[in-house]
């Protein structure tokens, strides 16, 4: 992999951060946790030796951020939240976002893979490499997710999912 200087690396991260953040919101269902995970991933991205190993910054950020989000889950229980960050803009509610409602029906792993496959456009091979699973495992996880949505759709014939997608 060609070594990027600081500016090129920063540009590469800037080019994909928004897409990664949206993917993270899809995968974890929370803007706050997604932003926290993205910041952790950006911190990790600036560690020495990282950029040389990264083929796709978006896939790498997504994977590292998801790990950080999972690690932070237990920690959040102990954090004392005093007030919201005063600089934060009012955030729109995610409750009404149909895609998120669909994704909530899936397991966390299924959500991660579905978003990686259909939103970030990662191939099954790329998913397999980043999550250290076999290609067949990645394929079957996504297939199970689709099947689950299909079952829900058939169960709710003319129902919510059919109207949604």
């Amino acid at each position, binding site marked *: 992999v060609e070594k990027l200087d600081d500016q090129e690396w*920063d540009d590469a*991260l*800037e080019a994909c*951060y*928004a897409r990664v*953040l*949206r*993917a993270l*919101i*899809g995968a974890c269902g929370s*803007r706050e946790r997604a*932003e*926290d995970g*993205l*910041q*952790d991933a*950006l*911190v990790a991205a*600036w560690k020495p030796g990282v950029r040389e190993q990264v083929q796709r910054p978006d896939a790498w950020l997504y994977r590292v951020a998801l790990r950080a989000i999972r690690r932070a889950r237990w*920690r959040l229980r*102990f*954090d*004392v*939240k*005093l*007030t*919201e*960050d*005063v*600089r934060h*803009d009012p955030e*729109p509610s*995610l409750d009404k*976002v*149909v*895609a*998120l409602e*669909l994704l909530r029906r899936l397991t966390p792993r299924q959500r991660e893979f*579905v*978003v990686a496959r*259909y*939103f970030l456009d990662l191939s099954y091979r790329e998913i397999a490499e980043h999550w250290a699973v076999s290609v067949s495992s990645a394929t079957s996880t996504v*297939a199970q997710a*689709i*099947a689950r*949505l*299909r079952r829900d*759709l058939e169960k709710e014939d003319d129902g919510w999912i059919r109207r*949604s*997608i």
Partner: protein
Amino acid sequence: MDPEKHLALELALENRLRVDLDALAVRPYAYYREAAVRRIAARPGAPFSFVRTGATIVVAVVVAVAAAFAVLKVTGPGPAASPTPTTSPAPTPAGFTLPPGCSYVGEPIVEQPVQTVVTTWYFNCGAAPDFQAIERLTPVFAQQGWTLCSIGQGRGTWWKGTLQTTVGQSAEGNPVLTQLARQSQDCP
């Protein structure tokens, strides 16, 4: 599942994800970048740097003692050497004084994780972990002329002049107070 239906559902799902997720507003990249830089600079605890600093001090002391013994053994005691000026971290943060009942714990730690020098003090106000540290210090910062930048996620940040100070509280150990040059005009 019927392959055709499978594909149709895949396409529909893909389309729905693109439409909905792409519509979500995100903050500018600079916001996340600055937050990441601050997080590197003000990482509470910084256990490894603490260990590294500690190890450096121990090695330096051992080498100095060994050198002193070697000099004394070879030349015997001589005239007292003139004091060498040394740079050491400020014993307390600039422009901020802890309220009564609170005190600093141990020596401050100086790091330069990015381009800015960061100094970290551990302090104690009678409890460790201290989940009230930020709440307790918020009025103290205001009284001493500091402006609040942000509070949340176990961290509070204030600025005054060219300095910014962050207080971090966590579920482990004493809270920390970190001071560095102000990173941006709108505060971090």
